[in-house]
């Protein structure tokens, strides 16, 4: 542990730390462009120069390892002069277009030029101009602004795992980009916009729409996948302008996927902003009272067995709690939060990502079963890639299911249950890898569990976990990867069929037969709505997607940006997001709609504010007693051993960019689909 002195302050840092980190430890701010905590060190911007005693010239603190007895000065005249010089050189070729630059107001170069810049340029020669690169529908480039920090190059190589960006040519002629025109085919490309310290890479969908100081910033949680990435929603005058990542070391570090970032433009299209009631086969606008009256006319006096509820993929726990309680009052046990019909919901350890996402950093082997992690949870895939890189390739990954490109080295083992059995019987080579591993893990995707034989697959994966010591002591490497933000929350709350109740597929079949007369869809759109023609369908949600089209009564709900909500991610970690803007038009927060409906049905639910609903959630599940903690689950018996069908596992996510009503309505996601998904299809053919 080296001890050094920074500006007279003695600090002790971990071995291997850099001088820059030591300076930060001492509370000194070091300007930088190329240095980034999560990327390799490049040391090419020279902005972080500091004075080191007994060194002949200023040293780049980001690339200098901290050593015992160093004496560092960060505020001497020499340092100031050196940084001024660096800044002057950086500005030689940087255009003076801040007023029309989207980075303006949150630009590192702009900020640091205030501290180290000269008020006028001494440079009379011609400035260079660089041709812009076409990087696809997400990243907009103005390459003349590039200062060659190479953060984007390192990110795409190290984190995203797509070697698209590079620094080509040399000297004054250097250009950062792909050499030959190529889009960045990565689910994480939006992070390049955050990484770029200047305005060279900016957001295409957000271009010229807002300035950072106009935006109201609200902390929230992403619902586009089950990772629960922490996000910040930036809104202006009742409109969500953009979504940015919030740092959470144990979940998303500081990255978010492109869907998380850019699907929000879907919130401006196909919205449900007022109640509707179907009259003579056509949906007519109605008032809340009319909508509730229509429901009451149908539901009042109806046997609870004829009523069912399905919760969708992006709903919050508050509304599921309210609906569960309402169904209880209606005397119905037919409720399900697994609209994909997956066979999960036993003991808690059987449906969460037990090792936690951060636990991947300790694992030494990973078996992925029926999950296309890159499409289902890009953030977790980048974590796996990070682990693979940090172990210099010793982290062995085996894949069972479809073939997909994880961006790191892997062994493709087979397509389906047969391979799973081979592993279990130790006949596969990968079994030896698992045997040798100290902390092996298994990731079971919905592609393996949403089948008829899901129970048997679950039992087989449990047997593998037990056989190869994936559950030992503190370590639990049995992980289920969900695709829906609401799923774990729903399971924890018990939004599953009660005694004698029907599960999703039975509800749909019952509705088709006429046994189930009323189906309450809480944001559920990914079901076969053609089976609902006979039933009276209540759709509550924010988006006019498949569910709303099949509805007899539409209750307009709030999107995730428009309500305070609790979500439980695939790790079983409960997190709360805050309302960034108010719901559209007549729409209301979802739990409040259910509460109001309960009043109209004369079976008022016992809560009047969100805190009371949350108190009820705590009663239902200990998950909600403490936020942001992935509570450990007891290991117990689950799954039903049985015959598995030979068909291969198929990931439920066919198109990463469009998985839910919001992303299906998004223009940006449509553009990405066109740009990338077709490419991928063509690749498969070739």
């Amino acid at each position, binding site marked *: 542990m080296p001890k050094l002195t920074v500006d007279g302050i003695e600090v002790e840092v971990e071995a291997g730390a850099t001088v820059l980190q030591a300076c930060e430890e001492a509370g000194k701010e070091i300007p930088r462009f190329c240095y980034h905590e999560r990327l390799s060190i490049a040391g090419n911007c020279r902005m972080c120069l500091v004075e080191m005693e007994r060194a002949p010239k200023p040293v780049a603190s980001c690339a200098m390892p901290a050593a015992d007895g160093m004496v560092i000065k960060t505020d001497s005249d020499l340092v100031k002069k050196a940084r001024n010089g660096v800044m002057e050189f950086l500005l030689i070729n940087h255009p003076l277009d801040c007023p029309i630059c989207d980075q303006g107001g949150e630009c590192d170069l702009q900020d640091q030029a205030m501290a180290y810049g000269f008020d006028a340029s001494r440079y009379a020669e011609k400035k260079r101009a660089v041709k812009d690169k076409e990087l696809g529908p997400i990243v907009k480039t103005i390459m003349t602004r590039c200062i060659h920090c190479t953060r984007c190059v390192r990110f795409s190589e190290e984190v995203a795992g797509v070697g698209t960006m590079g620094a080509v*040519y*040399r000297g004054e002629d250097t250009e950062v980009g792909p*050499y030959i025109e190529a889009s960045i085919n990565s689910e994480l490309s939006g992070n390049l916009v955050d990484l770029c310290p200047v305005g060279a890479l900016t957001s295409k969908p957000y271009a010229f729409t807002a300035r950072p100081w106009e935006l109201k910033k609200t902390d929230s949680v992403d619902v586009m996948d089950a990772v629960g990435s922490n996000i910040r929603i930036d809104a202006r005058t009742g409109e969500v302008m953009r979504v940015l990542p919030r740092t959470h070391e144990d979940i998303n570090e500081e990255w978010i996927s492109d869907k998380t970032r850019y699907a929000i433009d879907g919130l401006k299209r196909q919205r449900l902003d007022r109640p509707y009631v179907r009259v003579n086969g056509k949906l007519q606008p109605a008032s809340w009272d009319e909508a509730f009256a229509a429901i009451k006319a149908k539901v009042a006096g109806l046997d609870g067995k004829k009523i069912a509820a399905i919760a969708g993929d992006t709903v919050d726990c508050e509304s599921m709690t309210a609906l569960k309680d309402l169904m209880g009052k209606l005397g119905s046990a037919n409720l399900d939060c697994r609209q994909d019909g997956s066979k999960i919901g036993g003991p808690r350890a059987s449906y969460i990502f037990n090792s936690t996402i951060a636990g991947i950093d300790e694992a030494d082997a990973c078996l992925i079963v029926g999950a296309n992690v890159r499409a289902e949870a890009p953030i977790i895939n980048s974590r796996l890639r990070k682990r693979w890189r940090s172990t210099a390739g010793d982290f062995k990954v085996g894949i069972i299911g479809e073939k997909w490109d994880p961006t790191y080295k892997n062994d493709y083992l087979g397509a389906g249950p047969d391979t799973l059995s081979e592993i279990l019987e130790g006949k596969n080579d990968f079994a030896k890898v698992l045997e040798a591993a100290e902390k092996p893990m298994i990731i079971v995707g919905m592609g393996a569990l949403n089948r008829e034989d899901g129970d048997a697959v679950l039992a087989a994966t449990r047997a593998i976990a037990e056989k190869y010591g994936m559950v030992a002591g503190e370590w639990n490497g049995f992980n289920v990867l969900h695709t829906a933000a609401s799923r774990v929350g729903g399971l924890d709350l018990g939004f599953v069929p009660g005694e004698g109740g029907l599960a999703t597929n039975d509800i749909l079949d019952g509705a088709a037969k006429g046994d189930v007369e009323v189906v309450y869809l809480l944001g559920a759109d990914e079901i076969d709505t053609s089976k609902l023609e006979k039933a009276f369908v209540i759709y509550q949600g924010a988006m006019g997607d498949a569910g709303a089209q099949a509805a007899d009564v539409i209750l307009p709900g709030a999107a995730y940006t428009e309500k305070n909500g609790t979500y439980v991610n695939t790790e079983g970690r409960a997190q709360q997001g805050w309302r960034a803007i108010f719901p559209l038009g007549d729409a209301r927060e979802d739990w409040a709609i259910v509460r109001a409906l309960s009043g109209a049905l004369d079976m008022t639910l016992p809560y009047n504010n969100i805190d009371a609903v949350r108190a009820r959630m705590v009663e239902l599940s200990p998950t909600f007693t403490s936020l942001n903690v992935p509570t450990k689950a007891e290991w117990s018996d689950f799954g039903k051993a049985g015959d598995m069908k030979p068909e291969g596992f198929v990931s439920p996510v066919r198109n990463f960019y469009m998985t839910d009503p919001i992303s299906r309505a998004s223009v940006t996601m449509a553009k990405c689909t066109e740009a990338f998904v077709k490419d991928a299809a063509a690749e498969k053919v070739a």
Partner: protein
Amino acid sequence: MSHVRRPAPKELQPTSFAFTPENLEKANKIIAKYPEGRQQSAVMPLLDLAQRQTEGNWVPTVAMDYIADMLEMPAIRVYEVATFYTMYNLAPVGKNFIQVCTTTPCWLRGSGDVVDTCKKELGIDVGETTEDGQFTMIEVECLGACVNAPMMQINDDYYEDLTADTTKAILDALKKGEKPKAGPQSGRKGCEPIDGPKVLKAFCGCGAAPQDADASEGDA
């Protein structure tokens, strides 16, 4: 700015590339020089091999992709190397690729005349190729033969101690399909002072070449 390096337009880019069997053997030998797991270090000699193999003395993009595949590295890493080093031509050049040094020492010793002579004799400007595809001329920075300034490099050979006349003579010979003698054109053997040796005269016999000098001449 002279001669901006950019990849050849799509129309000129071939659609496929593979080493000839002889070159493949050479490539494998080169790769074998590097330790296991460090094969990527072979990227520069392989690019050179590809350039020599390609008609027009250049590295097409497909060749870079081919090498990237061969060395199991992302294509962009190969592009970075190929674009960084000016010895790799990114677009086809003439059969005689003339690089005239115009850095200060050569310029002081009259590289302007050499450039002008090339322009006049070949009818092309800096960075251009003659219509018959025989000559491409570019200006380059120091090629490290300042003692024999001014100089130019034609393909793999250095022509030094140039004047307008000797430049013309070289170009004329090349036009006829001959290969003019490489090295200093002034009569001196190597990089000794232009008006004869100043030191160690006893060893070299003041002009009468000693027996040893003959032996070393071949290496020069």
